[in-house]
């Protein structure tokens, strides 16, 4: 795939900040003021990645991994210290004005809406700033309203909106000018489940019906599982994994568990190809090992024990990510390559 086919291309992207290091010991505050010591801190370290047009990609990583800084370089807000970046075929930080027309962004904890004005006035302001035609503006608002129910509260000053209402308005504001590429930095943080689902439906529609490319950073693994075809895992500013969630599970050895309840206490549960995770007589949890599948374990349990209830529990994604983050913290491999 050539660069022209990609919505986003980053090669060996580096971002280094100069930060003041605090003195220690006596009069540390005064010494820091009079004799500041600066040090370089690399937040993004040779990040190489690409995103195809129309893809919805999750950019994952623990706090401080460099996700937000990467997003800010991809949007053109931050200038990389080194490396190449192209968004919609353009170097975003060199031509910010032109770049702005082809991207939209939501930074979950920061509002781009005018705080004291009704959300609809912010939309109108953005319409004028982006020079959106009346026809497109009307259509966009109608489409967004159909899913996000904006009209219920868009005449309320932004300062009086709930978090969920505000973030839905932020989504609409970011896409009013119909950008082909959208960056969402933790957009659903603090939302309740109903609003989250509404937001996911909106994002799905933007990708499937409008063909937008979306890069999403989130800590909500349910969101990732329901929305994203591809996962990019970043830690210490470096790309640690690039692939599907299933590939991540497979690479990390994550397997489903089989939960079983017996009709009467069973003193010992032993099956070839399965590890007993827990067992208390009436109930047991087993994990398939090696080539054994969960279906093999279910069949073996039913044939050998008085089973009254049995089920396969998929991997808990939160636990999976915790394990992945911890293992990736320990190891510091080079940039991953995207699977073919």
């Amino acid at each position, binding site marked *: 795939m050539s660069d022209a086919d990609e919505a986003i291309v980053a090669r060996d992207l580096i971002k280094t900040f100069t930060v003041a290091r605090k003195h220690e010991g006596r009069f540390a505050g005064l010494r820091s003021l009079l004799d500041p010591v600066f040090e370089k801190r690399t937040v993004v370290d040779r990040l190489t990645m690409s995103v195809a047009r129309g893809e919805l990609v999750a950019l994952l990583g623990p706090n401080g991994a460099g996700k937000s800084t990467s997003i800010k370089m991809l949007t053109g807000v931050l200038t990389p210290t080194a490396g190449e970046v192209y968004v919609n075929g353009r170097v975003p930080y060199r031509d910010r004005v032109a770049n702005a027309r082809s991207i939209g962004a939501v930074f979950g*904890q*920061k509002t781009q809406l005018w*705080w004291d004005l009704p959300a609809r006035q912010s939309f109108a302001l953005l319409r004028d700033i982006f020079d959106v035609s009346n026809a497109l503006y009307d259509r966009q608002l109608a489409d967004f309203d159909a899913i996000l129910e904006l009209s219920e509260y868009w005449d309320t000053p932004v300062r009086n909106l709930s978090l969920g209402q505000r973030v839905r308005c932020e989504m609409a504001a970011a896409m009013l000018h119909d950008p082909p590429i959208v960056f969402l930095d933790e957009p659903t943080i603090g939302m309740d489940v109903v609003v989250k689902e509404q937001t996911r439906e909106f994002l799905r529609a933007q990708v499937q019906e409008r*063909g937008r490319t979306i890069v999403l950073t989130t800590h909500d693994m349910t969101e990732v599982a329901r929305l994203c075809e591809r996962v990019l895992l970043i830690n210490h500013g470096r790309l640690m994994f690039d692939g599907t969630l299933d590939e991540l599970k497979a690479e990390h050895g994550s397997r489903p568990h089989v939960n079983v309840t017996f009709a009467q206490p069973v003193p010992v549960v032993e099956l070839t190809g399965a590890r007993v995770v827990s067992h208390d007589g009436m109930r047991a949890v087993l994990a398939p090992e090696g080539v054994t599948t969960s279906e093999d374990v279910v069949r073996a349990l039913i044939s050998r024990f008085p089973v009254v209830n049995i089920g396969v529990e998929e991997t808990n994604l939160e636990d999976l990510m915790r394990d992945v983050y911890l293992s990736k913290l320990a190891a510091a491999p080079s940039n991953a390559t995207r699977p073919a």
Partner: protein
Amino acid sequence: MTSIALPDAGRRRPHRSWRLLRVGVLNERAFRIRLIIAPMMMAVQLYLYDRLWTAVFQHTSKAAGLTLKQTLTYSLMALLMGRIRWNARTINVRDSIPIAVREGTIVYWFLRPISPGRFYMWRQSGDVLYGGAWALLGYAVLLAGGVIDPPHGATGAVVFAVSLALGQVVLYYLGQIVDVAMFWMLSNNGLARMYYFVQDLLSGVFVPLPFMPAVMLAFATWLPFSSGVNVPLSLYVGRIPVSHAPAQLALQLFWCAVLALVTRFMWQRASHRVTVQGG
């Protein structure tokens, strides 16, 4: 992507600058109490200054080369001129640079097809026009009440208007330097407070510059602050004759040009060192 034809024929939209100009007024309208407080505050300030200068001139007809009426005209109009940029320099407005940098929302200034400098200019211009409307109202009331002198003829009025406009441009650029410094300092409250005190003192808002000690007056004259308030008001009250106006206007233009270059350079540098606070 299909496009749905919606009935927008005949719906004409003003240029985006018009909507950006209006933001300041809309913000004020969102808090109606401000529309009551603004004229009250202005009336109290003008009344107190009127009483103060009247008391100062109780035993003398002239001070620092100015009569009471000239002093009142200078001083009260200086207060009104301070009102012009009142909202533009309020550092707690959420879409001001200091707050935007501190809260990280500055990120959106760089994600719009309008440069941050231009966006800043339109927002500031709107605030200045809004403040200017209040100042004009106050001026009309003072003039109608005979508290201040009218301008010296049509020429005097035109010269004053041009000088006032140039003075506002100088103050706009000076304020912008303080605001854009936020990109380096990340917190400029102290700088802003100090700057606005110095600006008001050395431009003639607090006290007419002719009342300053000679050394301070010379110092103030060599700095751009004087171009903001003292020059237009000195032309208005006749302390600077209209025949000397070209030199004064040229000096104001000089400061406009220098400060425009400085702010342009600062914006260029600032855009390379945007720091987004708060993740």
